[in-house]
């Protein structure tokens, strides 16, 4: 069975792709153009015509917002995870702010900050903060009691906290990454003049359907590439965790 798996890993997606190509080529719907058309449009649009005008701005906003969120979340999450009173005091405020659905904040952000890049970065950062923050807190609280006691006895609690909570923090960072992409797209759809999200919505509005699909495809690829990058970083940083649990 082991030998079949690597083959399956490639075959299953290829099979699905083949199915899509076959079905879309034969169908007549305007909304589902043949896969070949989509790929052709993709090539014309994104390789590399609109990279500078749309992809780069999108990526810059995304990266800035995400990184700000992670740093803030860990910085806030560690003290909160450790200090019971602080956590209890901050809990309702954190829970409330986190509970506001980010799209609802978009009109607010527009009113307060405007429609520029800083609004988008701030919004992405705000949204990505919460999963990482909550996972950081969970990670801290879930540290093995023996490990925690040992660290206390030797006076190394501070040093041991972040690595011990790291696996859980990374789980949160992974969730936040997909949220970051979502928020990037939403903010570009509603209040932007460039970016991939903007492009996809514009295409739909002007009924440029293959272009719309090419944009969706690009967003999928982008998301995938980001996850790949994330996984590589995680693999490196959490090698010890994987090995210890192997």
């Amino acid at each position: 069975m082991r030998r079949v798996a690597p083959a399956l890993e490639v075959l299953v997606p290829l099979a699905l792709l083949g199915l899509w190509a076959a079905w879309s080529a034969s169908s007549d719907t305007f909304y589902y153009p043949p896969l070949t058309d989509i790929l052709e449009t993709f090539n014309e649009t994104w390789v590399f015509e609109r990279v500078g005008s749309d992809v780069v701005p999108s990526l810059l906003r995304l990266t800035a917002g995400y990184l700000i969120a992670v740093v803030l979340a860990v910085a806030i999450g560690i003290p909160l995870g450790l200090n019971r009173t602080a956590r209890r005091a901050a809990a309702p405020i954190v829970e409330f702010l986190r509970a506001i659905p980010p799209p609802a904040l978009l009109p607010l952000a527009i009113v307060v900050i405007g429609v520029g890049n800083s609004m988008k970065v701030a919004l992405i950062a705000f949204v990505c903060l919460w999963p990482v923050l909550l996972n950081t807190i969970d990670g801290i609280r879930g540290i093995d009691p023996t490990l925690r006691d040992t660290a206390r006895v030797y006076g190394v609690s501070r040093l041991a906290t972040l690595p011990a909570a790291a696996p859980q923090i990374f789980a949160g960072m992974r969730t936040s990454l997909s949220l970051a992409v979502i928020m990037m797209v939403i903010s570009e759809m509603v209040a932007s003049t460039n970016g991939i999200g903007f492009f996809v919505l514009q295409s739909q509005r002007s009924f440029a359907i293959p272009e719309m699909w090419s944009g969706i495809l690009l967003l999928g690829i982008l998301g995938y590439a980001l996850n790949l990058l994330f996984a590589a970083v995680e693999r490196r940083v959490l090698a010890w965790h994987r090995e210890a649990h192997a």
Partner: protein
Amino acid sequence: MLEVRHLSKSYGDTPAIGDVDFAVAEREFVSVVGPSGCGKTTLLKCIAGLLAPTSGEVKLEGDRVMALVFQEYSRSLMPWLSVRKNVALPLRRRSKEERARLVEEAVEAVGLRAHLDRYPWQLSGGMQQRVAIARALAYQPQILLMDEPFASVDAQTRADLEDLILEVRERYDVTIVFVTHDIDESVYLSDRIVVLGPSPTTVKEILGVDLPRPRDQVETKELPEFARLRAHVYRLIKREEARVAP
């Protein structure tokens, strides 16, 4: 050097420790034995400062530098650090040279010099516990507290570790408080034995162990005095257990 004065500890309404009172002199090896669940671990944690006693106090002369070796060695070693870095971790405040020296000495003393750059998960249970012991030794504590440290290793390894602890005790001149449920072990290792009763625990008796040093796994255990002591402790504990049995 260490005085435990009328220590009691309750969790809410449940008393764990009733009234424990004993003293430990410098360089003494004192074992604490008692029936399972009598609160030996709680007692050790109170001494180490990890738990606050409900009443009574723990007095330690000097700087209060204590090291604690747990039974669950795998959960007390930092999985993201190598052996070398694990042992070095509590020594942050020292200079680089001193740190390296202490680590080398301690790891050599426990016989793990060849494994300095390995990770805990790469070592056997006995070896991991040696790392924990090395870490405690490198820390140069006034008192080494050990909570059933050899309970989770096989009998052969246990004998080796027992002899190891006697060796390092000679070499480092450290005071040891050793919690165990293994009566043979307590007689073999100690200068004095504190026998605890069942929960809520109190001190039933404190015995002196007048066996010659250096101890030997075969010769010491052949001595009639050894048998007498172990029988005495055994009967004491059994009698106490019977008293509270339903």
